[in-house]
């Protein structure tokens, strides 16, 4: 891991204009997001539906243009690039989708699916013999049989389809793969196979993952660092163990406490939040979590909370006026042993 991050996101904002009840409104899907992604690391991204995870992923893939802030990839802002330069950026950032059934074209063979990216990125693998050889290599790399190139998606199981999606993402030798819930559609026994594969590929190829998942035990297993989002803002981020062991933000604490886990004690006290995530069309003032927070005070409604740095190892920060104390952290983590 070199010191300069591969991807630097600063104060990123994305606004969608929407019409709500006949009025024009702004939906701030991302509101001042700042994060780094280093070479060869896995950054976990967690948060509930509507928190902006997917918008962040789409913006990093340059499928959305930011309305504020900046993205720098290897020192270059991809939003200022055009043509060949932009294409070269796209080659380096690829995606693995959640649904292995919807994300593969049923009318294309496995070989065609894996080699399709080269039809756009024509600089790679120019001869058909070269392409065929590379397809076999990629299938082998993801644990499929090279002879499977002629099969169609529906002839594969869910886990094998996801391997195919991974092979397609790898076809352009990317530096970053955005994995959007890559195992949540898979059965548990198959999920473990795919997580192992992603891990092996990272060791072998040094690719960085932005790993989006709602499953905290999966994120804890794969991520070096983690980002927790709520209503378009990052409420807490830092090293995974530091963050999950001593969550400072009440939302992170509640997420950890609510998520069922074999690591928890069986009959435990839980932090149960009241209410549900407010509409992003009308987010609360000040701290966005205050309407569901049991620690909220008047202060939380008036200003954005300051960054609280973990006092133990300084390895994660939270945006909160009233970070959790040791007792609450214990309740949130509720680990056995």
């Amino acid at each position, binding site marked *: 891991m070199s010191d300069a991050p591969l991807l630097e996101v600063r104060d990123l904002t994305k606004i969608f204009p929407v019409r709500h009840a006949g009025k024009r409104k702004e939906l701030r899907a991302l509101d001042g997001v700042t994060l780094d992604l280093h070479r060869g690391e896995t950054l976990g991204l967690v948060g509930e539906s509507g928190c902006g995870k997917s918008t962040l992923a789409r913006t990093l893939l340059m499928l959305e243009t930011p309305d504020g802030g900046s993205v720098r990839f290897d020192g270059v802002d991809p939003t200022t690039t055009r043509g060949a330069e932009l294409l070269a950026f796209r080659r380096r950032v690829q995606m693995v989708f959640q649904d292995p059934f919807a994300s593969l074209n049923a009318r294309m063979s496995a070989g065609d699916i894996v080699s399709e990216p080269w039809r756009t990125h024509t600089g790679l693998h120019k001869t058909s013999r070269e392409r065929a050889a590379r397809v076999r290599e990629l299938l082998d790399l993801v644990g499929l049989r090279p002879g499977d190139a002629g099969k169609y998606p529906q002839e594969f199981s869910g886990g094998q389809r996801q391997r195919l999606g991974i092979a397609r993402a790898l076809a352009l030798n990317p530096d970053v793969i955005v994995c959007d819930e890559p195992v949540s559609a898979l*059965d548990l026994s198959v999920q*473990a196979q795919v997580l192992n594969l992603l*891990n092996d590929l990272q060791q072998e190829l040094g690719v960085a993952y932005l790993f989006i998942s709602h499953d*905290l*035990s999966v994120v804890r*297993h794969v991520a070096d660092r983690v980002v927790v989002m709520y209503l378009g803002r990052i409420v807490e981020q830092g090293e995974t163990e530091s963050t999950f062991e001593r969550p400072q933000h009440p939302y992170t604490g509640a997420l950890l406490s*609510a998520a*069922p886990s074999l690591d*928890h004690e069986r009959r435990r006290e839980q932090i149960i*939040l009241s209410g549900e995530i407010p509409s992003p069309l009308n987010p609360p003032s000040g701290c966005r979590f205050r309407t569901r927070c049991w620690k909220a005070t008047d202060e939380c409604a008036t200003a954005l909370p300051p960054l609280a740095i973990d006092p133990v190892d300084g390895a994660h920060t939270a945006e909160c006026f009233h970070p959790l104390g040791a007792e609450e952290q214990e309740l949130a983590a509720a680990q056995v042993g």
Partner: protein
Amino acid sequence: MNSALTEKAVALDVDGMSVDIRTPRGVVRAVDKVTFQARRGETLALLGESGCGKSMTATAVVGLLEPVADVTEGAVRITGDGGTTDLRSASARRRRDIAGKELAIVFQDALTALNRVYTVGTQLAEPFRIHRGMSKKAARKEAIELMRRVGIPEPETRVDSYPHQFSGGMRQRLLIAIGVALSPAVLLADEPTTALDVTVQAQIMSLLKDLREERDMAVVLITHDLALVFEQADRVVVMYAGNVVEQGLVEEVFGAPKHPYTAGLLESVPVHAERGAELRSIGGSPPELAAIPAGCVYQDRCPIARDRCREERPAAREVAPGHLSACHFPDEVNR
């Protein structure tokens, strides 16, 4: 807690039930001689991966199988306040009579399960109108009370809203409200929180638990989520390829599994202690229903399978009091 559970009355008794599906390529068995019991006041989990037959089992119990599927053998008995009913031999009238009153089901997809052209108040009042013969006004009052009980804010005004005007979590609360309206002896919950975010899932599970205690229901939780079973259920029935492979108290089955499939599942879960390490996964995938092997259903993926497993289907045997495993070699299973 063990003894307290066994003293409770059996509310649901599924006894050697099989479900066959007629397909263009012949009859396939989706559920094969499944046997388990659920007692009042307990949560029993039906655990398994997609296609294992857990939802089919639940659908068969409530009598909502598609026309191509039939219960072909075994018995399903419900014991409520009105005595014991054998559902397979019961008349349509009797079945209608116990629906909602002694047996109810909560589905995963609340928007599909609710009727979108009626207000939620009308739908919540239905059980009271039909089974208790209440007037519209009295049933509406009950509906409002029920909405309050399941934690829907401002029930007096929300009672006239339509399902799409509620969030996913609130809709699930409404479904649960309809399910528990008449305090049934048995409440089946088919993946009730799978579509919900974790903080909302925690709210819903906590509500289900409170209602179970308050109304002394047997809750049958159908799920693929091991951790949810671990935290919520008293006993667990593990299904694989239409068969029950293991059942018993959660702490026993999860603590010392006696079937290689259960052990394999437990090893596939990422646990904190082994962060970043290779996860031990189960190789291969479950068999197609049309091609379930003779002998043990798990033989193709089992690390300890041998000749006997290919020849003879293991029967469920008691490995400890109340702990059953359908494996020829339960003592060789270790994690």
